[in-house]
């Protein structure tokens, strides 16, 4: 009987507590979502990489998403700081939509990290999009 008790004590897995990030999923997800023009959304592009960096993070805050207007960042802490700096400069405000566009092969972990960085920077409208 004591063996049974020891078995259940050992076999019971005490899980790490979980927390929840609240995400909005508006009627139409994606870059062409129900976002009023002429608001220019901030787009966070996530692309897996095979090099030294596991993930390439690019941020665009202009209508032209060409190479010149994209900011390349090292990690998600830098992403959060960059988003905060955009707000501090008055380029955007908390109502500016943030679109997280990830390549198909991007792990879910990185998408959630990008979402969390947007929440840290206190943006209210964050949506998910695919990036073909």
């Amino acid at each position, binding site marked *: 009987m004591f063996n049974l008790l020891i078995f259940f004590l050992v076999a019971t897995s005490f899980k790490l507590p979980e927390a929840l990030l609240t*995400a909005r999923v508006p009627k139409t997800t994606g870059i062409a979502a129900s976002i009023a023009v002429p608001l220019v959304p901030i787009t966070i592009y996530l692309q897996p990489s095979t090099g030294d960096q596991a993930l390439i993070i690019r941020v665009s805050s202009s209508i032209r998403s060409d190479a010149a207007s994209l900011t390349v960042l090292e990690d*998600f802490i830098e992403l959060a700081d960059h988003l905060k700096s955009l707000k501090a400069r008055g380029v955007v405000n908390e109502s500016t939509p943030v679109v997280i566009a990830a390549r198909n*092969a991007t792990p879910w972990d990185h998408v*959630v990290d990008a979402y*969390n960085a947007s929440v840290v920077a206190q943006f209210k409208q964050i949506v998910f999009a*695919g990036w073909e």
Partner: protein
Amino acid sequence: MIKYFRTSRRITWQGKLNLTPLVDITFQLIVFFMVVSQVVTAEREPMQLPSPADSQAKQKTQADRIVINLFADEAGQLGKIKVNAQPISDLPALVDMMLRLGPVARAKGTSVILRADKTIRYDQIEPVLKALSNASVGLVEIATEMEVIQQ
């Protein structure tokens, strides 16, 4: 005249410990662990959840909810799918289920919780998010590991 008699018989102390309460407590503990381990694993089966740095996630205590579990297989692809501990055959079946349950969940104010393994590719989770958005769910809660702040 008082007479004293010596006797050779020694009075020995026969101490007996009653183990019955100990056994009762042990059985209670066994039953407790048996029941608790079942309750905890029903909806929240083990998987590697995302753990963002400086997490803004909060704990949820609401009982009425739809919990979507997306498990990864060894190759990092989407494997098992469960909704409130009920197995779902594949992704299209999950999408159909969300399209049916979504409006009901929204009407009742039921929260929808998405627990997905952090290694699953985004293209396998995006259809679920799209289904929830097409079902006008509105708000989805993404489960993450809670950050332990070391002081």
